């Protein structure tokens, strides 16, 4: 997502992992951990000119 934002032309792209995010079901949670699944907060700005 970070790269997609930069490729689109966004500037000041920032990302922060959302603490506390988890899937409720254990089976889904285990699969998510195996794939490094995280919730992330992204911020970015479109250039002013």
């Amino acid at each position, binding site marked *: *997502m970070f790269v*997609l*934002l930069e*490729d*689109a*032309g*966004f500037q000041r792209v*920032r990302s*922060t992992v*959302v603490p*506390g*995010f*988890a*899937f*409720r*079901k254990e089976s*889904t949670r285990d*699969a*998510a951990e*195996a*794939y*490094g*699944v*995280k*919730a*992330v*907060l*992204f*911020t*970015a*700005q*479109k*250039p*002013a*000119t």
Partner: protein
Amino acid sequence: MTDVALLHAEEQAPLEGVIKGEVLRMYQEVAEHPEGEFHFYHGRRAAELFGYEPEWLDRAPPGAVASFAGVGNPHLRSRLQPGETVLDLGSGAGLDSIIAAWQVGPTGRVIGVDLNPTMCRKAEAHAAASGLRMECHEGRMEDIPLPDASVDVVISNGVINLSFRKRTVIRELFRVLKPGGRLSITDIVSAKQLSQSIVNDPKLWAS
């Protein structure tokens, strides 16, 4: 588009349609039966976990809070100002739109876009019950039904990961933002390429 990319898109098209249907079904289920159990945490418990202000959750319509299905808190970094125009991409039952509307005030404007027209009407009703005006447009995030350079801020919560065409979605966000506009979005990302068995499973993709 290259021949290979075109072939890939054609192969994915039927699956994309199935997943769209599953996404519609799952999030309507959350809205209509929030007491149910899903792969993800939802409702007030999830919102509190992500740092939503308790006073927001007390003040918003219970239906909007109970149907909350976000993955984080885009309001932490949105820095909304009175008078701004906000797009809530994938507005669902409307909780994030309502919180945004409180921040931009009566001189601001909040526009929701959601794939599901039933959810759009529900979000508008929740906003109206809060004494707010929010307009919601049925539409796809890959083809946002708004003019170029028409919004100051985009917020979104756990939606873009549902798209097969994330690059197109991000380009659309860039298009609808005014110069100098900004976005604050929370979403799910994976460090590794998901296996084809997950990609091909509409229920897992939708969750």
